[in-house]
């Protein structure tokens, strides 16, 4: 065992990488960007607000990955749900519009789930296909136009406003993470999801309905993406087909860096939250450092590569 392995084992580096990475990058930006206002409460709360939709998508993805499935379609679901909500809101009350947006996400997720669980198609290919399919649907829905959603009741509850003096996006994040964490760690359902991803045959002979679990996790991932689309719409007060487009890499990176296994059986909702905040902080810091958009993309890609490599590196291999 070389010294790097010893140190990494002592710190349990693999399992805690996300917290360590978060602190290191936070410290780096705090020093480097002190004069640019990185540490101001306004900037820090901005990071949390901006990552709220990604965090909620990440929660759904933790369930899907833990059950041994992957969802690549959530970015497209975000756009469909956002546009559905904004379009319906033009004619109907807010709660109907929000319900329609959520339902569209749930329905696409359930479609993924049925194809995977009952037609026995691999989730990678199913969700790759529905990602493309619904990216097209989102473009066609409004002919590439963006739809405004400026009702203050809507934006107040789902985006830019405050509830009880706290920004509503922070409340959504906290509630979603808390509920997600409890369901994942403390419920029978969570245990069955993890068992299905760990050893599907063992779960099945133990009486767990593994196909039902697969349907549920992909539906849940779709519903989370649906909610994320609504929150995006509330925050920018409009829906557009480009919403969610850039989230695929960021959300997968957040989840993997946060300690969820790509091949099932292991995951963490809190880790995904911190991973998502880490991605948001990177985004924010790189902008403050005045990197150009193309430079930001390259730096972000490299940092994700390093982070994922450390989290996934199998020392025994």
């Amino acid at each position, binding site marked *: 065992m070389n010294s790097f392995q010893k140190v990494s084992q002592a710190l349990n580096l693999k399992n805690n990488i996300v917290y360590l990475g978060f602190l290191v990058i936070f410290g780096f930006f705090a020093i480097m960007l002190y004069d640019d206002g990185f540490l101001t409460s306004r900037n820090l709360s901005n990071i949390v607000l901006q990552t709220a939709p990604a965090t909620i998508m990440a929660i759904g993805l933790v369930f899907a990955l833990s059950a041994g499935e992957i969802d690549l379609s959530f970015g497209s679901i975000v756009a469909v749900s956002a546009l559905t909500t904004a379009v319906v809101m033009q004619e109907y009350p807010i709660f109907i519009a929000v319900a329609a947006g959520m339902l569209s996400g749930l329905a696409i997720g359930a479609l993924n789930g049925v194809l995977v669980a009952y037609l026995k198609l691999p989730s990678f290919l199913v969700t790759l296909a529905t990602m493309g399919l619904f990216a097209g649907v989102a473009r066609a829905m409004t002919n590439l136009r963006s739809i405004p959603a400026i009702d203050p009741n809507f934006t107040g509850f789902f985006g830019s406003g405050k509830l009880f003096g706290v920004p509503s996006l922070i409340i959504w994040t906290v509630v979603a993470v808390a509920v997600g964490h*409890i369901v994942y760690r403390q419920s*029978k359902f969570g*245990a069955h999801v993890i068992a299905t991803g760990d050893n599907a*045959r*063992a*779960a099945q002979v*133990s*009486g*767990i309905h593994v196909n039902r679990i697969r349907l549920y996790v992909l539906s849940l991932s779709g519903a989370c993406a649906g909610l994320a689309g609504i929150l995006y719409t509330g925050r920018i007060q409009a829906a557009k087909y480009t919403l969610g487009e850039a989230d695929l890499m960021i959300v997968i990176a957040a989840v993997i860096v946060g300690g969820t296994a790509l091949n099932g*059986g292991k995951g963490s909702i809190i880790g995904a939250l911190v991973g998502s905040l880490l991605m948001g902080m990177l985004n924010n810091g790189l902008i403050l450092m005045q990197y150009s958009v193309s430079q930001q993309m390259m730096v972000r890609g490299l940092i994700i590569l390093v982070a994922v490599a450390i989290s996934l590196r199998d020392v025994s291999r």
Partner: protein
Amino acid sequence: MNQQAPVLELKKIRKTFGAVVAIQDFSLELYAGKVTALVGDNGAGKSTLVKIMSGVYSPTSGDILLDQEPVKFKNSSTARAKGIEVVYQDLALCDQQPVYMNLFLGREYTKSPIPVLDRKRMVKETEALVKELDVRIPSALSAISDLSGGQRQGVAIARATHWAEKLILLDEPTAALGVAETARVESIIQGLKARNIAIFIISHSLDQVFRLSDNICVLRQGVQIGVRETAKTDKNEIVSMITGLSY
């Protein structure tokens, strides 16, 4: 030889897969507190019989009687609900999960009124059970992947023991183990007899069969060749029954 009634009785079981006849005209009785061993060459139909008894397959024809009542198992869940547990050849454990979650896989305890997992109670029962069965594992919290082959087998047997009310089926429980670990697992199986459940074990090791069993049933190409009391037979007789050649 047995005064009591059999726990499980197979009557003229036949199982075909298309044109392949895997089991024909198989009858057997299993008794509480007794170990019955099933021996036979590769492809004789042993695993198929286990799957019939555990509800994975339904027989093409023939009857299964549980406590002398005819039963039809729709799937493995119905057999499990009636007190029949299986230790599968591949163990069917979730490697990344702790021992106690495997023991309660699919049957987790929850608290009331809010149904959150009752981990404390599951850990406590796991600790009591592994102590009672003398399965030597570091802790109920250890992940399966950190255990040795014998310890894993012990966990799989402990799980079956915990839930079996009538019958435990073991499909080659020591096939992948070394000498010392085999001895550990055998002593665990010996300990199960005291629990007054019927035990049915498949093994390719005749030494093991003679160490553990009360009765030996021989299967050749799907046909039951005969049942012998272990104390009243010897290896030569069993080998000639398995192969069909006389010595």
